[in-house]
């Protein structure tokens, strides 16, 4: 030990510290060294703010060199990719090599995208390049036909709340997935709630905002303001709705998730919020002494 110290070889960690990855990407993740590009300045910033960091940082493009009859079809790299027929009397498919690159830099170098389970992505069509382009052209339309569930608009308290205090709103909309067949290919779609516009029924709205809101414990109702709460100023019955904008991705036969360039806006059926007012009064008797005293159970409710 003394000899080591004299040589100055003292690393800053304990002798039995466990191994870590030496991969640069892993090291950055371990210490949460993350940046987003500030949309105004274009400069990387560590202030991640409200940016949904679940968004895919990659862009993808297909490489058709291994398609049947294509330039590389007889090379080893292509021959090992099998696309067996999907039906007993069907044709073999063409393997597609998907390439990926980060979206954040201009003119990046693309490298091979690895399918999750190692199976190649295939296209089953006489014209594989055309079928991919044809799917891309119609996918927004197909996306907008999906039975996407808009969720419900919830309010606390409900169905009766009070004017002058924050009524908390939130949506139960969630991400959903669908598996459909388009032009003979197996398409996996995701629909993700991205933005919400809250219509409170009294002429005011909130949004569009990515805030989906969240339920509060009962003890905090009408006292705690949230990003999605609203205070009604007049008593009455208000039909409230929420419009959610869904974004989506699609993947073709086990390929990577490609962005769908457009959204689907869905609005929930109206839910009626009954807004009452509170009254305060000084009372001389307790309800035990005088059951008919103001505000006691069984007496007229206040509106």
């Amino acid at each position, binding site marked *: 030990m003394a000899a080591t110290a004299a040589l100055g070889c003292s690393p800053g960690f304990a002798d039995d510290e466990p191994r870590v990855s030496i991969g*640069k*990407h892993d*090291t950055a993740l371990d210490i949460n060294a993350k940046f*987003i590009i500030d949309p105004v300045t274009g400069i990387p910033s*560590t202030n991640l703010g409200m940016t949904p960091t679940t968004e895919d940082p990659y862009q993808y493009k297909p490489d058709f060199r291994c398609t049947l009859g294509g330039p590389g079809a007889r090379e080893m790299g292509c021959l090992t990719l099998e696309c067996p027929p999907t039906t007993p009397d069907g044709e073999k498919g063409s393997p597609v090599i998907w390439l*990926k690159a*980060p979206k954040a830099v201009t*003119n990046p170098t693309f490298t091979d995208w690895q399918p999750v389970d190692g199976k190649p992505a295939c296209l089953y069509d006489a014209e594989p390049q055309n079928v991919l382009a044809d799917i891309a052209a119609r996918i927004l339309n197909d996306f907008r036909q999906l039975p996407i569930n808009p969720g419900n608009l919830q309010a606390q308290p409900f169905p009766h709340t009070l004017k002058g205090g924050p009524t908390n709103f939130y949506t139960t909309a969630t991400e959903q997935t669908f598996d459909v067949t388009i032009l003979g290919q197996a398409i996996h779609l995701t629909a993700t709630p991205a933005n919400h516009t809250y219509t409170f029924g009294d002429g005011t709205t909130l949004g569009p905002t990515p805030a989906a809101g969240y339920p509060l414990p009962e003890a905090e109702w009408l006292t705690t303001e949230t990003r999605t709460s609203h205070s009604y100023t007049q008593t009455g019955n208000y039909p409230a709705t929420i419009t959610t904008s869904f974004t989506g991705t699609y993947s073709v036969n086990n390929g990577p998730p490609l962005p769908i360039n457009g959204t689907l806006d869905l609005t929930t059926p109206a839910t009626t919020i009954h807004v009452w007012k509170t009254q305060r009064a000084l009372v001389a008797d307790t309800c035990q002494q005088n059951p008919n005293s103001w505000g006691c159970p069984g007496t007229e409710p206040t509106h």
Partner: protein
Amino acid sequence: MPELAKENSKAGLEAFIGYWYATYSYATETGDLGPWSQSTDVTTVSGAAYKKAVELNYTKGRWVVGGRITTPVIEVLWQEGLNTQSAKVQVLQEQILYFDADGSSGQQGTPEFNTAEAVKATYRGNSWQVTDNGLIVG
């Protein structure tokens, strides 16, 4: 270090960043952090973490195979008058295999990566130093 990489300019920073990633590739492949440490502020959280990742993988006779880093794209976002400048970099790293002193596999291999990173560098004295670095996630 190439002469251009010592210049306090957009072209100088671009050359410096390419050089800096090359020194970290060298450190990853050999365990020698010498050149990289000269160009990095290792008192920062990210600097210290990158240093430790290399040290932990070269102590007790450990070694690695692979892990070469290349940077096909370096985009310097030069802002006149600022001492600390920013850049976006595409970083490719080859897959990595880990070995202990006896030649046995030390831990699960790391697959190859293709990512975008942000680099912040400050011009101090007459040279650049990297003061922050991490993944661009959005």
